[in-house]
């Protein structure tokens, strides 16, 4: 068997310069320390993205976008197509888990300060990938054309319209008209299955190339160890095999969720019914949704939601550019300003999310 591999390797090496590629894969080593577990979060996110691509392609075989066909085709997938319910349920659960792991990955990178020089652009591409993943969630949410999706899209696109100057035309372009209609569905479908996959794949490739080229970040404590006490494992094959093992565990959890808590479809969207009581967005938008709920109609002379939207926009921008912000910490401080900001962000997100589900 090994002989065959060697032959293929030689055949390819005679024709292409494979050494650079081999070096890129083989040179990396992964530090082993107390917080090594966080190194796996990005890999799990990537794995779930591939699950999304594969189940998404399967759903495309039966899904028909349109005001009179979207809901019906998803219902058909769930009731007539063999294992259709499972594929759709996996797609929905995997989407949620992917965002969860992307958040875990982001905050672990944040708190270990792995975004600092020389990995600033890895952070930026990672942040943009998360933003695209959220756009995936938002656009995909509408596609079954059910009541919850309809109002979530109405509110979400209306929020875009709040942004001064560009907001209103952008809203009309997104909706394909003044209101959320079948035209919106067509646009969201195109965005969800063509535009976003292309853009996210491009960002992921760049992100992974950066990671592979620069290697894993080592925390301060690990860096200060004497050389002989630093333990590493090779990225390939040791770390990759551990990664795959974790993917299997995540896949099992995903299947259990999809089988025992199948994703519901709910009633079909009707533009002429009242928004149902208890309407909520996806959990990852909940903290923003809840914040908007708390804002009064007017703050000074500005509409409340405008303040909210601009606030979140600026906070997101600052978060993306975090590696470039020069912080000056006092020498004796117990906790750095960066860590304090991170802790505040985590607490804010958790508290507002819980309030969103309990109030």
């Amino acid at each position, binding site marked *: 068997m090994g002989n065959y591999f060697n032959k293929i390797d030689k055949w390819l090496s005679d024709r292409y310069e494979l050494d650079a590629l081999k070096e890129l894969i083989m040179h990396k080593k992964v530090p082993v320390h107390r917080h090594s577990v966080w190194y796996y979060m990005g890999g799990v996110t990537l794995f779930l993205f591939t699950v999304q691509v594969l189940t998404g392609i399967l759903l495309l075989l039966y899904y028909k976008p349109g005001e009179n066909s979207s809901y019906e085709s998803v219902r058909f997938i769930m009731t007539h197509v063999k294992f259709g319910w499972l594929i759709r349920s996996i797609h929905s659960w995997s989407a949620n888990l992917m965002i969860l792991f992307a958040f875990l990955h982001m905050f672990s990178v944040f708190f270990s300060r792995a975004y600092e020089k020389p990995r600033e652009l890895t952070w930026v591409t990672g942040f943009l990938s998360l933003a695209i993943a959220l756009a995936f969630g938002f656009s995909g949410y509408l596609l079954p054309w059910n009541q919850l999706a309809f109002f979530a899209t*109405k509110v979400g696109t*209306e929020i875009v319209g709040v942004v001064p100057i560009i907001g209103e*035309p952008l809203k009309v372009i997104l909706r394909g008209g003044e209101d959320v209609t079948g035209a919106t569905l067509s646009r969201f479908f195109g965005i969800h299955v063509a535009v976003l996959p292309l853009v996210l794949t491009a960002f992921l490739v760049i992100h992974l190339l950066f990671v592979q080229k620069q290697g894993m970040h080592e925390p301060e404590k690990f860096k200060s160890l004497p050389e002989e006490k630093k333990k590493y494992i090779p990225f390939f094959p040791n770390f990759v095999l551990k990664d795959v093992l974790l993917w299997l565990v995540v896949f099992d959890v995903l299947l259990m969720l999809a089988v025992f808590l199948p994703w519901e479809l709910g009633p079909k969207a009707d*533009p002429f019914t*009242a*928004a149902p009581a208890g*309407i909520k967005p996806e959990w990852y938008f909940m903290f923003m949704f809840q914040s908007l*709920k708390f804002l009064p*109609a*007017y703050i000074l002379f500005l509409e409340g939601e405008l303040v909210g939207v601009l606030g979140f926009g600026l906070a997101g921008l600052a978060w993306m550019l975090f590696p470039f912000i020069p912080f000056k910490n006092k020498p004796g401080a117990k906790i750095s300003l960066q860590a304090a900001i991170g802790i505040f962000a985590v607490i804010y997100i958790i508290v507002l999310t819980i309030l969103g589900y309990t109030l």
Partner: protein
Amino acid sequence: MSQTRRKFINTILGIGGLGSLGAILYPLVSYLIPPKITEAKVNSVKAGKADKFKDNSYKIIKFGREPVILIKTVNGNFKALSATCTHLQCIVQYRKDLKEIWCACHNGLYDLNGKNISGPPPRPLKQYDVKIVKDEIIITR
């Protein structure tokens, strides 16, 4: 001499390049903006029989492209208002328990005259006129 020639050619190419970019982008952006669909303006709609409408209940009525909320109060009076919440455009409902108009999306409240009384809505709901002609409910602008 050759430097000026190079500069000249670069300028021409630059202008040509910008022109081409514009010629590509203009139709592209125009294509993205959806065309306006003109619809006949609706000035009144019939909303069913008045005696069949229970007190302290509501219905969402199609008024052209706009949703209108028609409420019969506990006193048997009819009220018609725009059903689009002025906050983020969700469709409002009548809360029998509160005797007020409520938006489920962000907890906005309006009184029966459409006045925004609590929560995030920045403006009142637009009022429509309701007439009863031979027991038929007619909503007009």
